[in-house]
């Protein structure tokens, strides 16, 4: 795990970060989450690595004052509602219900760019490298290795794609109203999606898992969605059935799709050729009222099913399971600041999701400050401008938001 408190980062930086965070909370009104009086709050402060939990607030001003006074490194609040949110054990809190939440995080996505922007440093000998940290330092063998992760547009875009798929599942399949959905940028490498609806509030852990299985396509058997009748495969258009048809359409529509088809299935050339020459017939069948798949001679049902099972991967959503099934979870407080980035945990209106740009919309600090880099660092965009890459030892005046980002990660110090 990455830890923020680098050896080289002194109390001077921590104090600075705390002051900056406090100044934000003094300046900006933080609207508390819905029904906040029934929620538990939790905070990480700058001076010690322990979570202050079981807090509750009876009015918005109280919360605001707390934030302004402590300028906490991380601020969380429960997804659950309790009769007594301050009680110190889960049993005595009196669980009333919980919103349904989802967490999509680039940390769990397999993004190739991590090799370019994540890096590690051996705390023992100073050796360093790119990508995720190794088990042991290849130079000295120490396992005391610190990992530095970065935020990048590609990672966030991939996470956004996942959240869009998730949103479609919730609205189209589960019938959740768009007004009951809230999408929040986590302030780091991902997005949260909250469902505020009476319908989901009393769902148990297992029931939430069943929904999640649906969204992740777990246990999916393609054969549930079709029936074979005299050589023709007749499909259903609802639920995963529609996604199955869509994935087949995507694969057959153009050459890119056909290439992908060849890559992902161990399909021989002749089968592929048969599909290619037959594709207009298949595509026509797919668009019929009762969608049909008519296969060319020599291509079996089994080949098709295998292929579809693989093609469907693109509809499955990568969601972090523990977050969704844990009905006592605490999750980042909307509009608070993320202690690893200084970025704002930002609520995103649904119709703005496409345009949302974390490097612009989650930036809250203005001004400049001079810092010194302790490590080589990848570039970072703030607003419209890209800064960096930076060299170890480099002294430079940078935008405040960038300074807070690198100070919070422990890769730079104040000058």
């Amino acid at each position, binding site marked *: 795990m990455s830890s923020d408190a680098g050896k080289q980062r002194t109390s001077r930086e921590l104090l600075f970060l705390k002051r900056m965070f406090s100044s934000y909370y003094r300046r900006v009104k933080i609207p508390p989450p819905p029904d906040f009086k029934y929620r538990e709050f939790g905070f990480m402060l700058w001076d010690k690595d322990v979570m202050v939990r079981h807090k509750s607030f009876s009015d918005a001003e109280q919360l605001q004052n707390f934030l302004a006074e402590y300028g906490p490194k991380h601020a969380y609040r429960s997804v659950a509602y309790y009769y007594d949110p301050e009680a110190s054990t889960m049993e005595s809190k009196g669980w009333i219900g919980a919103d349904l939440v989802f967490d999509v995080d680039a940390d769990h996505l397999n993004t190739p760019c991590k090799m370019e922007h994540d890096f590690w440093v051996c705390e023992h000998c100073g050796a360093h490298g790119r990508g995720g940290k190794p088990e042991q330092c290849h130079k000295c063998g120490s396992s005391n290795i610190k990992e530095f992760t970065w935020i990048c547009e590609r990672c966030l875009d991939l996470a956004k794609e996942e959240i869009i798929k998730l949103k479609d599942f919730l609205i189209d399949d589960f019938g959740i109203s768009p007004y009951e959905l809230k999408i929040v940028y986590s302030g780091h490498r991902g997005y949260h999606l909250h469902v505020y609806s009476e319908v989901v509030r009393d769902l148990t852990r297992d029931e939430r898992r069943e929904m999640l299985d649906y969204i992740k396509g*777990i246990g999916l058997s393609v054969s549930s969605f079709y*029936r074979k009748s005299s050589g023709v495969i007749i499909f259903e258009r609802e639920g995963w059935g529609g996604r199955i048809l869509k994935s087949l359409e995507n694969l057959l529509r153009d050459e890119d799709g056909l290439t992908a088809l060849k890559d992902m299935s161990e399909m021989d050339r002749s089968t592929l050729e048969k599909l290619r020459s037959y594709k207009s017939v298949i595509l026509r069948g797919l668009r019929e009222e009762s969608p049909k798949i008519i296969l060319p001679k020599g291509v079996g049902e089994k080949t098709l099913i295998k292929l579809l099972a693989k093609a469907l991967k693109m509809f499955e959503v990568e969601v972090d399971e523990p977050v969704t099934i844990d009905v006592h979870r605490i999750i980042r407080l909307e509009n608070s600041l993320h202690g690893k980035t200084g970025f704002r945990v930002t609520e995103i209106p649904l119709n703005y999701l496409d345009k949302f740009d974390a490097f612009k919309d989650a930036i809250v600090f203005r001004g400049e400050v001079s810092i010194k880099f302790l490590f080589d660092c990848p570039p970072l965009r703030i607003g419209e401008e890209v800064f960096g890459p930076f060299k170890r030892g480099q002294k430079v005046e940078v935008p405040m938001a960038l300074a807070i980002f690198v100070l919070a990660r422990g890769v730079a110090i104040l000058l």
Partner: protein
Amino acid sequence: MQRHETVKLYKEDLAKYPFIVQAREYVRKLNIDLQNLQNRVPEAISRVRKLIENAIIKGECDIDIDNVDAEIIAYPLARLLIEIINDRWLKQRFAVAFSKRVWNLLRRESNEKIMLIATQPGNICENGWNLQREEHITDNKAYEWKLHFKDYIRASRSLKAPTWKLTNRLVSNGYVRLTKKELVRLIAECVKERLISSEVPRVDLQEIPEWLKELIEEIRDLMNRYKKEVIREDLADMRFKVTEEAFPPCVIRIIEAASRGENLSHEERLFLLFFMLNIGKDVEEIIDYYRKLPDFNEEKTRYYILHAKAKGYTAHNCDTLRSLGICTPNHEWCVSGNIKNPLVFYRRMQYVIRRRKTENK
């Protein structure tokens, strides 16, 4: 709710579905209690005896609407008796048998009546289902109903077959499409779950009338005799005790569930059967594994085993088990992916164990 006003429930309906609110209300209005029952509706006593006897012996519940009042009263009375006897096997067996009766009757009912029973609060669940009629007739199936996903998830909880998994359903706009047959099955499931889990108000055993004490003893005797002579839980327990070390984890899980008297799914029953036949167990031995199931019927079980044996089925592949939700990959061999069939696991494990034993000598 308005839409119910078009359906009229007759006394016969209450006898068929004595778990619904109107049936409870009807019994309440009769002003019958344990003290006056013997004088007012004596037929209810012989009726409840028959009902429970059948459940014990056949694993089935019959229905008798010649005397409607007796039939309606027999239901709460049966629940009371079972609660007093307080035997897990009996409770499960009655629940499974009664839910089969509900399934059998309900599938012949009009859609209006099914709608009423399913949506009215307190019948099959506290709030009643969020259920709609909507025809969706495709080349595949004739769907006539839509059930809200939340009610669906709750009702299908104990159904482990992949066709019941939400992922494999037609879900849109918050609703899950169901055929009439599926809907009725889910209602029966709910009735069963409620019979197993919900409590019947306790009565003071000192206060109960003599006829009831006798009836309780009679049923307890029958149950014990039946368990001892036919169910032969002792045979099952003996069988479970010698669970072989070499069994793969999926088989062990099913055997453990069977030994706890859980209601195995159809697929689990078949897989266990094929597996045991394939490793050369004999028919009588295999029957023992099923003895504790809540709807165990020796004749039927023997028939299935002999049938499978004659057909020479092989045990499911790991792939199939995975898609059936039966795979339990908690051994490194399973995770490695090198094992394609549980029989391979079994034979390889036997070999390893044998070698370990000779080495130790």
